[in-house]
């Protein structure tokens, strides 16, 4: 436990985090791509067409992982933002602020793929129902956080303001999640359950789960890459950055 605690505290140090992130990033990438390759094959080729939706249901394998990630990334960002506001470690600010664009990307994907799925199934690309509207609000909250962060000359001040917004915006998370329960909506309810049996065929479930895990690893990989760049920029003037830049010049 002591070794773990020590390692955890070391991760809070920018130069250590920079090296650590650089080390695990290729592994995260490899796992993400392998899982996605198998998941895509399972979803597009092996899984049979849906009894009701035919092959249109295959959009699920990109739509649902993206929609889950839109909430998951927000959760990680909100926790980092909370830590950043209360204890002010620089790493928490970096992780929160660099998560925002990734979360926005996943939210945009969920909106676009959902729209493309809605047209053949519901007959419309868009409707102002609870799930769709709250997901759109989530996208705007992400954009607000990114915008606020960049509106300040001092990035640390920007991160602090944007972290507040991220914490407040977290009230939208349960609204998105429970929108299909609380309101009568066009969007279908939950079919995958953590507890108890899921109402989805195993041949469709395993590719979906693989794509979901792949998306999580992608998030990790992207976050490591983004945080590394952010650290170089934020810590300019520090010796370790100068060393890193010289080393990088040496090998291209």
């Amino acid at each position, binding site marked *: 436990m002591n070794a773990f605690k020590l390692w955890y505290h070391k991760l809070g140090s920018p130069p250590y985090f920079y090296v650590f992130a650089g080390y695990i990033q290729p592994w995260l990438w490899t796992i993400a791509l392998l899982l996605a390759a198998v998941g895509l094959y399972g979803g597009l*080729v092996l899984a049979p067409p849906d009894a009701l939706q035919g092959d249109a249901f295959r959009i699920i394998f990109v739509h649902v992982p*993206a929609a889950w990630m839109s909430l998951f990334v927000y959760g990680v960002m909100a926790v980092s933002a909370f830590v950043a506001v209360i204890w002010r470690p620089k790493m928490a600010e970096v992780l929160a602020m660099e998560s925002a*664009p990734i979360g926005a*990307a996943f939210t945009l*994907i969920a909106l676009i*793929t959902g729209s*493309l799925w809605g047209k053949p199934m519901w007959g419309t690309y868009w409707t102002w129902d609870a799930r769709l509207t709250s997901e759109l609000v989530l996208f705007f909250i992400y954009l607000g956080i990114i915008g606020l962060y960049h509106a300040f000359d001092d990035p640390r001040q920007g991160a602090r303001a944007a972290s507040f917004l991220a914490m407040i915006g977290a009230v939208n998370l349960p609204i998105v999640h429970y929108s299909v329960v609380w309101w009568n909506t066009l969007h279908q309810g939950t079919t995958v359950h953590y507890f108890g049996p899921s109402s989805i065929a195993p041949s469709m479930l395993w590719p979906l789960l693989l794509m979901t895990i792949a998306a999580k690893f992608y998030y990790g990989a992207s976050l490591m890459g*983004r945080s590394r*760049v952010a650290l170089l920029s934020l810590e300019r003037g520090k010796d370790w950055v100068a060393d890193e830049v010289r080393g990088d010049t040496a090998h291209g």
Partner: protein
Amino acid sequence: MRSVETLRMDKFLAMGGFAQYVWPAYAAFFVILAGDVLATVVRRRRVLRELRGRLARQGTRRPRVSA
């Protein structure tokens, strides 16, 4: 004569008549994530170029003082 493989491929690409919805959805997924990766690559290059310029200006004239 079209081979069996070609026919199977055509059937796969047709997505049971939903090709115009399924493939753009997959394209959106990969293009947007590729954009996320590309944005980071571009930013990394810009930041490194900036920092290299900074180092070059400081040169070896005076010992570097960490901020």
